[in-house]
């Protein structure tokens, strides 16, 4: 009998681990759903760093649990519903592919607030947020044009959605502001995250004669290939300098923390409203990694462009800009409006690729 009591006591002690969750209930829960691994070195890692900033800033008022490697589709709906049921007050669903799952769960839980990254559907309790990545890509394009000897860059693209097409055009636009004849080759990897495919794409582009590489996919594989072949490259989503200390010129870092903190504060003081947010360099949601491996004059140019974009003096898509086939898109001095950018499905002049439609 005594033994049984001891065993029960030990069991209770072991079970203690999860009863502590109940005591912390006064803290609000701000939850995160990740599509990849939080150490992917790219997109999800950038989100995870943002989450950690949030915990640092507001950790005394909130908890911030997360789920990683959640596949898009029915699994995502279950994962998000589990979060809504487990007492999350605000849920960040950090991938475009979670859009419909987010909308379905949001309809079932009107009291829970949702923030969906890069989507186009919203509701009273679903806000969307995105970052003006193209501002960073414009700067990368300028650097590329200065650093490339051949005047051709390679672009490893994921999927032909407006977001990615916009990035390709912004890069080309930046490059052309330095070298009007700058050309770009594009390879569609059809993945966000696949080191093997991304490395193959990088090798194919280098074999076609590009001497600068940039990517809109999430792993450091292209950076490593560029390092092996001795050409320069740009990092994506996270600072990838560790993968190419002598290779990375700069990286477009997603610094979501600023946005996560802003929205969580709004949740805490009751001012949270559904919005469609599209912040850029000036808001701190996007940061350029240190400009490295380049001469001082190129660095100075990049810094000057960054300052001009932040101050609003420069909009990367300012006319005159022609479409790929030479027909005019923007007149001299005309700036692209956000609606056109968010639905962008055409290339501008100078991109050497046929857009998959």
């Amino acid at each position, binding site marked *: 009998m005594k033994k049984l009591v001891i065993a029960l006591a030990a*069991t209770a002690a072991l079970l203690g681990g999860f009863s502590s969750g109940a005591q912390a209930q006064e803290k609000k829960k701000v939850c995160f759903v990740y599509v990849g691994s939080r150490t992917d070195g790219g997109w999800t890692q950038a989100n995870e760093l943002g989450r950690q900033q949030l915990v640092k800033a507001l950790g005394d008022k909130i908890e911030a649990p997360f789920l990683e490697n959640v596949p898009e*589709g*029915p699994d995502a709906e279950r994962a998000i519903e589990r979060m809504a049921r487990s007492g999350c007050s605000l849920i960040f669903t950090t991938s475009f592919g979670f859009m*419909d799952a987010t909308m379905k769960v949001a309809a079932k839980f009107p009291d829970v607030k949702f923030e969906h990254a890069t989507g186009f559907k919203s509701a009273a309790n679903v806000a969307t947020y995105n970052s003006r990545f193209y501002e960073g890509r414009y700067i990368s394009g300028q650097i590329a044009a200065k650093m490339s000897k051949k005047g051709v860059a390679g672009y490893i693209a994921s*999927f032909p959605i*407006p977001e990615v097409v916009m990035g390709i055009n912004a890069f080309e636009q930046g490059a052309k502001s330095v070298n009007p004849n700058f050309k770009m080759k594009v390879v569609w990897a059809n993945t966000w995250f696949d080191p093997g495919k991304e490395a193959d794409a990088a090798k194919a582009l280098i074999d076609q004669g590009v001497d600068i590489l940039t990517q809109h996919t999430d792993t450091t594989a292209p950076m490593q290939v560029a390092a092996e072949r001795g050409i320069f490259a740009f990092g994506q989503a996270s600072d990838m300098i560790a993968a190419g200390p002598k290779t990375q010129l700069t990286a477009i870092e997603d610094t979501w923390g600023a946005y996560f903190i802003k929205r969580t504060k709004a949740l805490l003081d009751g001012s949270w409203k559904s919005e469609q947010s599209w912040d850029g360099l000036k808001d701190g949601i996007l940061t350029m990694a240190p400009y490295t491996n380049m001469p001082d004059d190129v660095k100075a140019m990049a810094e000057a462009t960054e300052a001009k974009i932040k101050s609003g003096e420069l909009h990367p898509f300012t006319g005159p800009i022609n479409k790929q086939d030479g027909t005019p898109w923007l007149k001299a001095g005309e700036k692209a409006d956000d609606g056109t950018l968010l639905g962008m*499905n055409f290339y501008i002049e100078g991109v050497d690729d046929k857009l998959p439609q």
Partner: protein
Amino acid sequence: MRIELEKRGRVSTLFSIVSPLLALVLTLVFGALMFWMLGKAPLGALYSFFVEPLLDVWSIHELAVKAGPLILIAVGLSICYRSNNWNIGAEGQFTIGAITGSILPVLYPAWHSPVILPLMLLLGIAGGALYAGIPALLKARFNTNEILTSLMLVYVAQLFLDWLVRGPWKDPQGHNFPQTTSFQPEAVLPPLLDSGRAHWGFVFAIIAAVALWFMMRFMLKGFEVSVLGQSERAGRFAGFSARRMIWFSLLVSGGLAGLAGISEVSGSIGHLQPSISPGYGFTAIIVAFLGRLNPLGIIASGLVLALTYLGGEAAQLSIGISDKASRVFQGLLLFFVLSCDTLIHYRIRLVLGSANSPAAKSAVSPSNQTAEVTR
């Protein structure tokens, strides 16, 4: 020196029954050890893995949603594997079934008729079966290796789906994002109950499992499957045709994978998109073997595997166990189940000395036999 697996003369009935339980106990012990080393309360972790997902009604629905396609695909595969036809391409048949099943709602979104759903299911079955018919034809006619052909057709199917949803079937109102329009309500597989998401796909899975179990147990066709799987020559003497069996097993498994595909798209997703499966067609291979290629065993193994997915999520959220740790735990379970099962049939023997043992020589001969198979 090397280690050999030697077939036991007699298989213990007692241990065939005890083995899954033994595997479970070993998993619990080693899992608890792992969680303890990670600094988590071991019992709390096991609780959120195996118990927490079963406490809520919605969560049990989710279990059925996750297990449904796994079971449906795996029972079809069990017929293939029992008959010595190695269909590795269920993922592709699943995808094609989803596509052919979606033809009606995508092309005729304004067709509101109750016949649309049954037609979709039939088209899904037909699509999956026809797609599995390609490796069947290649094997029956040209003696091609079906492992390679069925596997490679997976990528063809996935790229075809990718092309469709970015090209001709793209939702015109979808901001250029890659997905089709949402299916009309008549084209959505209804939920079983109002309390959650579980839909008729799970019922199809159970019906298929019971039907195939009945066939294997009580019908001549089932006997034919087993005999041809164990010895093609013996099957020939009995008048069975290995070539017809290639067709039968691949069409059945392809059709069921296709049904799983259209059920998943119609019941759980509601439209087509570039990725419709987190690898169900491949995971189902594990489920099939975990269920010892027995359709009823597969129901159990499908539910268990689905439970570990849900449990992994619950453990991530409630006690912060990482996704990697929960996958290791899943791996532990599979490892122990399969090794316990193996050790029922085989014993481990240490062989001292050179490799020129009679066992090594005799291992060469079966491949010579397969070469002389007539067509």
